[in-house]
């Protein structure tokens, strides 16, 4: 038996158990220990985040090339280093405008990737999927009853259209001065709300289920700790 390792493991387990109980005690109300725990958690998380970034990106991309080959390395890193230094000026209120070009590059690239991904990855495939839902030729090899396939496709299509209609907010002003949507849009919106309520209910049940598994894991941890403690005693 390796006493120091065992002691270290015991202390770590003990601290984990205490922290778990402190967080659970939040159900009874907010208190000082809970806030201390959260502050400690935020500090540790921030530290690990920094370390991940430095180890995965900054060191291999900005420091290691220079260490490996100073001449080539400097040429390689000059542009990203310059951009990074410009971005650091964003920490200052007075000189934050100097970081605008770096931020502009990030924003432009990010926007383009989002737009490209949305068009190619979601918009076109999902619209095609709605159309192909009624492809009777494709149903035959998979053995799906065409009638059932059409009904299923119809339900999905109605759900898609009515959900989109629910988020349509264009309206005309009426004679009373109020803005009202057209009657057809209102009807579609009502049906869309029904679909959305069902979908969100399912998502909510998934959140609950994930939480119950976390509860089970934490309770199991506490039980194991207590049992190990009793065995040790």
């Amino acid at each position, binding site marked *: 038996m390796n006493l120091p390792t065992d002691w270290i493991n015991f202390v770590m387990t003990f601290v984990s158990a205490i922290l778990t109980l402190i967080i659970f005690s939040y159900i009874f109300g907010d208190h000082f220990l809970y806030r201390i725990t959260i502050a400690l958690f935020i500090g540790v998380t921030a530290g690990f985040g920094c370390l991940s970034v430095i180890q995965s990106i900054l060191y*291999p991309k900005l420091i290691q090339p220079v260490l490996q080959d100073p001449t080539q390395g400097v040429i390689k890193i000059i542009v990203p280093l310059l951009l990074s230094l410009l971005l650091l000026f964003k920490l200052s209120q007075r000189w934050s405008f100097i970081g605008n070009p770096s931020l502009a590059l990030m924003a432009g690239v*990010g926007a383009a990737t989002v737009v490209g991904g949305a068009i190619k*990855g979601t918009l076109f*495939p999902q619209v095609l999927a709605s159309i192909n839902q009624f*492809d009777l030729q494709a149903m035959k090899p998979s053995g799906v009853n065409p009638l059932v396939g059409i009904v299923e496709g119809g339900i999905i299509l109605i759900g898609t259209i009515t959900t989109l209609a629910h988020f349509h907010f264009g309206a005309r002003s009426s004679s009373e001065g109020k803005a009202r949507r057209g009657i057809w849009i209102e009807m579609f919106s009502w049906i869309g709300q029904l679909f959305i309520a069902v979908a969100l209910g399912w998502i909510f049940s*998934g959140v609950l*289920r994930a939480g119950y598994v976390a509860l*089970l894991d934490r309770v199991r941890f506490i039980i194991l700790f207590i049992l190990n403690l009793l065995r040790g005693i």
Partner: protein
Amino acid sequence: MEMKICPFCGQPNQPNAEECEFCHARLIPLGEGSEKTEGDTLSTEMPIGEEPQPEVPEWLKDLREMKLDETEEGEGQDVIEEADDIPEWLKWVDTQTDSQPSTDSKAFSTEDLEGENAVRPEEEPLESEPIQPTTKANTEVKSTSAVADQNLETGLPDWLREMPGLEWEGELEKEEANYFGGVVPPFVEIDENLLDIGLSSLETKKEEVVQEPPSEDKQFEPSTIKSEITPMIPAEPETISAPLEEMPAEGKRIEVAGPLAGLTDILPVEPFIAEEKKEVDFVANLLITEKQKKQAELFQQLIEEEGISKTIKKDRAEKSSPWLRIIIFLFLLAASIYGLLFNPFPGKPATVNVGVFDAMQALSRVSPRSPVLLIIDYEAGDFAEMQSVGFGLIDQLMVKGAYLVLISTNPLGVLQGERLIQQVNTVGDHQYQSQTDWVNLGYLPGSTAGIQQFIQSPRNTLPGSTYGQNIWESNELKNIRQIGDFSLIVVITENASQSRTWIEQLNGKIPANQIVYLVSAQVEPVIQAYYAAPSPQIGGLVAGINGGATYEAQAGRNGFAIMFWDAYGLVVSVSIIAILLGVLINTFGKLRQSSSEKREGR
């Protein structure tokens, strides 16, 4: 020494000042001599008129019937006493009954104005009746100034002779000004040097007014004035006119000096007149519609409410009850403990869903030592469910001997990946070694940009492992140039946004059956839309602990999902009961409260 008040700006000036120091207005009218009597002002004297013409108003008649005794000698003092609405400068009492005629008054010489026909009146006191104006409040008005009337027998047109006010010709006694309280009222005095060129001078009066010889002041040389206006210029009276017997009607003013003397409703020049004027309330009615009015009111309300914090009314019915929350917690805690300790409902999921089946089928692409990319994108809070979901497939990969490559777009995903592999290694009884059998490439920042960069060029994006080794030259990874070179890509995530991002960025880069998703139950509905399409964008889907338990059951392996399955079933059942009971309790409680409120008459 009394100061001279400027009639234009109201500022005090030296008594002998000719011009105002502040606004440079003339304090002494043009044509006056250098001699100034004390208390000279620009006020004018009211001329005494003749018998009123038929169209002359009553008050004017009364003015003319005033006794001359008080103002016989030309002295007069216009005192306008008004009751409540008489301004200060008018509130002075005529205490002067005898006053010396003003011998210093100089009439404006019209000798040169008239030319040969000019009749120069001799200097003699003008006979005038004292004018005693009366007001509604029985005030007394006394004329104080004398205006020399020039009666020109010739040169006046008929229409001018018939103008009202001309009957005020006559000598007005000029009295020494008696100021009340130091306030210099207008029209109180006529400076003896003041030229009176009122219209009263135009009346054809038989009296001859003695004109003084022209002053030395060049600008008033009669020769410079045109002959056609000669009849308009009266001679300066030597006596003060009789005071007005009654005040003019309300709102009516009689001009007592200048070319408009004797006329009413003349626009005043002096600023103090504006003071005594009543303020006019301008009522402006906006031409707006009802709708605009309502919008304006709304806007005004918005502005007024800006910055004002409103107290939020607490609805009694919505008071949060900590007891119900504690009871629910205790129920679930009890169910968890009981389920974990006693396994009351042993069993495994029997049926296989399509997603699990497809995920199992996707493993057929994996051969020993073939690189499999594991994208670990979940938070530490969801590790329990994710290890339940992911155990089955990762365990199968380990059984197959795949070379696992870990990345994460979450800063802490690096450690989550390490933890997951170690847990599966331990529970599945494998001997997987880090750097030998699996490698962690680390954190991929930049979200979509980072993912797109990694897809395009994995080597350049993450050049080494978390241990700093260049793993791309290893046997397993030396052939990897782009993401499609991996035999299988497994995305393990509980984040709907991140799972969607990976599908969008991977779309078109690799075949759909090369991608398997292991997701949390909360993300399943989102990914189902991509998976359940006629042309699915992913090859397999294992969702939630029930998906993981199904996979483990089908694979014949006991992992975390099976370990938690019984207790999970009990906890979910208890939660359903707790939710239904809670809804019933709250509903009945609210009904009872509303009925008690109705009884209390609220």
